[in-house]
């Protein structure tokens, strides 16, 4: 697919170049070469996943490179997901009362 920032007519960007663009765009750096390689592999898997989601999409949604493209699905869930609520809010009747200093 087309990559943001790529001029039409030029050769397709290689994975490492796309990853370098991602790092620059989202200000990502990694503490070691091993971690860089690991994140590059995750990034590549996510590009594949985005393409698959795009092909299978029922709506008009588009999927591609995002600030979270160097995270696994599990990491993304752990970092950004909150606790899953099974039951919902407890049944209470809460009412605000006026404070001593006069504001509602």
């Amino acid at each position: 697919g087309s990559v943001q920032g790529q001029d039409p007519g030029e050769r397709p960007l290689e994975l490492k170049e796309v990853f370098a663009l991602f790092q620059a765009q989202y200000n990502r750096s990694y503490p070691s070469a091993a971690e860089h390689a690991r994140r590059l592999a995750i990034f590549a898997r996510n590009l594949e996943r985005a393409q698959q989601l795009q092909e299978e999409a029922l709506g008009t949604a588009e999927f591609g490179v995002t600030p979270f493209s160097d995270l696994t699905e599990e990491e993304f869930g752990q970092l950004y997901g909150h606790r899953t609520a099974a039951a919902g809010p407890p049944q209470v009747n809460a009412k605000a009362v006026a404070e001593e200093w006069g504001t509602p």
Partner: protein
Amino acid sequence: VPLSCNWTKAGVISPIREQKQCKCCWAMAAADNIEALWAIGYQRKVSVSVQELLDCDRCGNGCQGGFVWDAFYTVLNNSGLASEHDYPFKGDRQAHRCRAREHRKVAWIEDFVMLPRNESNMASYLATHGPITVTINMKLLQLYTGGVIMATASECDPRMVDHVVLLVGFGKGSGRAATALRPRPRQSRPYWLLKNSWGDKWGEKGYFRLHRGSNTCGIKKFPLTALLHKPKRHSCP
């Protein structure tokens, strides 16, 4: 229910927030909800403190996650919220002492309510009262860049909701131009417009759209909103 509604056009939606690596979507969505309702109901643009919601939450978990109803409880218990300016967002994972009593309140609520789990009712309430918070399954948002997400329950389980966002409008259409990969935009579909808290570089300038009418990603599971003093109807542009 009008054909479309978009509260961003009324200038009542505060700028997109960025939660960074703090699991505070629940607090940010509650703050967004209160700010929008104050702008609609009182014509007052306020920016309330998310950090106060994190520090003073009854569970005391700060950035470890929470529920939107806990955020509303905190607002009720503290008789309002301080301003973002006075009590700024830190975005770190440390627990901080609640400093609610040290600052002047700039916004408060009368109560909060969970709306009926019905997308038509949600649209009606949204159009006449203002934005509401919803909790969704965020799985498909990781690699989302734009357009309307429509997913089956197996692709995005509506029972496993784990992310709170603000519902700010609805409409119909694809909203995407033809591309090389997709020469003709797919059929026009009804959608919800939602405000996220992952910065304005994500999605459609910080917003995203979900298909309306099919409980996509569990959108109708927990529709909650704060209530202000005046029970007045408003008109969504």
